[in-house]
């Protein structure tokens, strides 16, 4: 069971960091296209709870039924722990919907803007996101073929 009791705090931090950028205080965020928001649903394969940045990895299902491995950078544990996000906040097999500003060059990685678990647990800025449906959860376990990373950005569902 996910414990997440500080959604208001994390929302406030997301707002602050979108202006000042301290979540990415280890490096510039210029490699991410903040004009573009990509929304993806997929299955968590790994959550690396690491300094200076944690990384969430998912396999997202493309429209043609193939899957693409995506990685999303987020804050360091020293920040995540303060807002109640522990190293098991995302676990392999969880189905999530995420919002990201993707890399400008189209490779399947980006910064993590927000995410919702299938049970509705939220992380970050989740405007425009809905929790994965039962069908999403069912579909997540039914595809295994991986698409070439080069085309992944084009196949993802784009928002705005």
């Amino acid at each position, binding site marked *: 069971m996910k414990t997440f009791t*500080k959604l208001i*705090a*994390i929302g*406030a*931090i997301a707002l*602050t960091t979108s202006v*000042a*950028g*301290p979540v990415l*205080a*280890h*490096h*510039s965020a*210029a*490699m991410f296209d903040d004009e573009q928001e990509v929304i993806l649903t997929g299955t968590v394969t790994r959550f*690396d709870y*690491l*300094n*200076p*940045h*944690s*990384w969430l*990895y998912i396999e997202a299902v493309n429209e043609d039924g193939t899957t693409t*491995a*995506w*990685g999303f*950078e987020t804050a*360091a*544990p*020293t*920040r995540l*722990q*303060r*807002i*109640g996000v*522990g190293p098991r906040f995302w676990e392999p097999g969880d189905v999530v919907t995420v919002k990201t500003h993707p*890399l400008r*060059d189209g*490779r*399947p*990685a980006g910064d993590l803007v927000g995410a919702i678990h299938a049970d509705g647990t939220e992380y970050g800025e989740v405007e425009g996101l809905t929790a994965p449906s039962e069908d999403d959860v069912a579909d997540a376990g039914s595809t295994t073929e991986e698409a070439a*990373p080069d085309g992944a950005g084009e196949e993802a569902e784009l928002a705005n």
Partner: protein
Amino acid sequence: MNYLKHGASIGAVLVFAALISVTATTAQEAGADASEACVPLKEQHPDLGTSQSISAKMEFKTVWGSFELPGGPCGYASAEEHYNALLEQARANGGPTEHTLETLPDWSGSWGTDNSTGEIAIVGRNSTREGMAARLKPEAREVFMRDSQLWLDDHAIDPISFCLQPNFPRWFTEYGYREQFLTPERSVFYSQMVNQLRHIYTDGRPHPSEEWMNPDGEWLGYSIGFWDEDVLTIWTKGVKEGILQRNMPRQSNQMETIERWKLVDMEGSGIEPNTLGADYDPNARLEIELTMYDPSFIEPWHTVVAYYKEVEETPEDKEQNWITSWDCVEGSNWYITEAGVISQYAPGEKPPITDPDYWFNENYTHQ
């Protein structure tokens, strides 16, 4: 040179820099003895910054610290003069205080950075560019305005992105937990980012001689200090060249700093800290007066920094505030391509450096 590509925009900011240089008076160069002749920067640039500082973006609140430049209108001539003045003051009061383990103040626990205190803050967001430029001598000002434009145009790299340590006094501004371990002879200050430890010797020893001080500087410099009752005064020298923070001026390896640390009583202060979402004890606040002396500054740069004690009362607090080692390389997926593009590894692209099977390979050769 990249600089040429951005000549137009940089030229515009240099015009501002040139305007400042026409009126700047160098107090630090003249020394405190010439303070009668000096014109404080606040008087030279009344329209920059705030009433506290020409480079401050906002007014800050403090319980104990002062935003007034120590040593008079244009400050002391050097950190050494500043330190000796504080030492004389302590002696006049019967000090320095020779603490025992029982009499040292209690600064234990985990502490967090307060980003609403002073100008030296994460990403330099508490300082104005114009105000910072006005603090610098002409040559340093020109470099800063060029650097700043390169920051804004995404052509600059923060050195900590290479997993280098934050230099000093940037150490003050980084996020993560902090701890202070106090003994009568030395204090050890921990900052979680890349596990930095500062050692402050309070046993009366001087700084290392030139023979034993690294000519390239040390990341956190060499620090000595003394206690005056419950105030710890620290003089640091021998630091590395660096930047004060992202999009803040460079500092030389000649920078020296004076700090005064004190745990303050928050009762009735009405101060609302900004600790980036941390649970903190509003009645436990460490305030630090920080005065920076650098040959590139027109006058000493003085500000106040603060930390708050994290709340660790419940079992949940104690779990969540657990301090772990900070390895920078493992979680950094940042890299620069041969073409100079700053990017991130996508899944599967970064070598699996923490996998033991990656460490042993018959194809490896040490030559």
